């Protein structure tokens, strides 16, 4: 069955078909759980928060105004809930000149990584991502895996759009550096 737009299921739930909510849960559960896990670092807590957030979203579904995407609204709920649970500080703003851009030859790295087999690529990126901090990993997950725009991430985390851009840029550099180091090690 082809998955319809989120709003289609929301309308059905609001119309009284509660079981349509299962499709929304099934679609978003992995990213909701991943966000919670990146912040809480504990699978049980993350699962509990993810479950609570889906219930909370269900209860407040009639207040969702469809001005933003349902996913953005949902991820903001889970982000706030996980942050409250850990009493952790929110992502902090960083000034534009607070980091040094390393002029790694990214296209060169891309070309080299492209030549190795997919399984090895997957292992490499997972090792590289392990080097990221929890906050960095969260942003990368939202951007690349969740396919959220800079604006969506800004709405979810409360960071300004320019700060999200800066952070993503820095994380990309860091990942490229890690990949380059791995390639060097593999070649030597």
């Amino acid at each position, binding site marked *: 069955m082809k998955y319809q737009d989120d709003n289609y299921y929301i309308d059905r739930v609001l119309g009284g078909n509660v079981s349509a909510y299962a499709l929304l*849960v099934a679609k978003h559960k992995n990213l909701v759980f991943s966000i919670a896990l990146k912040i809480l670092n504990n699978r049980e807590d993350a699962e509990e928060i993810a479950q609570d957030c889906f*219930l909370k979203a269900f209860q407040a579904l009639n207040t969702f105004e469809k001005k933003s995407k349902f996913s953005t609204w949902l991820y903001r*709920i889970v982000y706030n809930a996980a942050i409250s649970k850990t009493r952790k500080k929110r992502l902090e703003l960083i000034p534009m000149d607070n980091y040094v851009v390393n002029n790694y030859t990214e*296209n060169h790295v891309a070309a080299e990584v492209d030549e190795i087999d997919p399984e090895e690529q997957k292992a490499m990126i997972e090792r590289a991502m392990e080097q990221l901090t929890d906050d960095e990993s969260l942003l990368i997950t939202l951007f690349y895996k969740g396919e959220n725009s800079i604006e969506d991430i800004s709405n979810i985390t409360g960071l300004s759009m320019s700060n999200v851009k800066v952070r993503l840029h820095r994380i990309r550099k860091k990942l490229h550096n890690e990949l380059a180091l791995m390639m060097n090690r593999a070649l030597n």
Partner: protein
Amino acid sequence: MEENDFLRKLIQQSPLDSPSDDFVDRVMINLKPAQEQVGVKKSFFLYVKAVLPYALLTLLFAVVYATSDLPILNWLPGVEYLQNSLFPYLGSLLAELKNAFASKYVSFGFLIGISAGLLFLIDRFFSRRSTIQ
């Protein structure tokens, strides 16, 4: 953007973390009590919303009925009934209520009741608004 696409492709190869297999079922099981809660919250406002037009219509009809001398209303009890029976009755009822409120105990009780009612409504209003942070 080529390097961005390269990373996107690479990162999307690694799967997202996933919760336990019965996650969706557990959420759906817990929706039932949540749904009942939602129902209770909704019913109060829906009730007011549903009753308000009828109340206004009734009021309008009562005003028209009490003030009009159109022949179309002749089959109804008539203005005389209101003037001779209903209004005096309501007047005596109000007089009795006025006497009751001459007692400070009744007045205090009434004020406490009104305050509690207002606090309850304010609490309901804000708890409904603050569901989402």
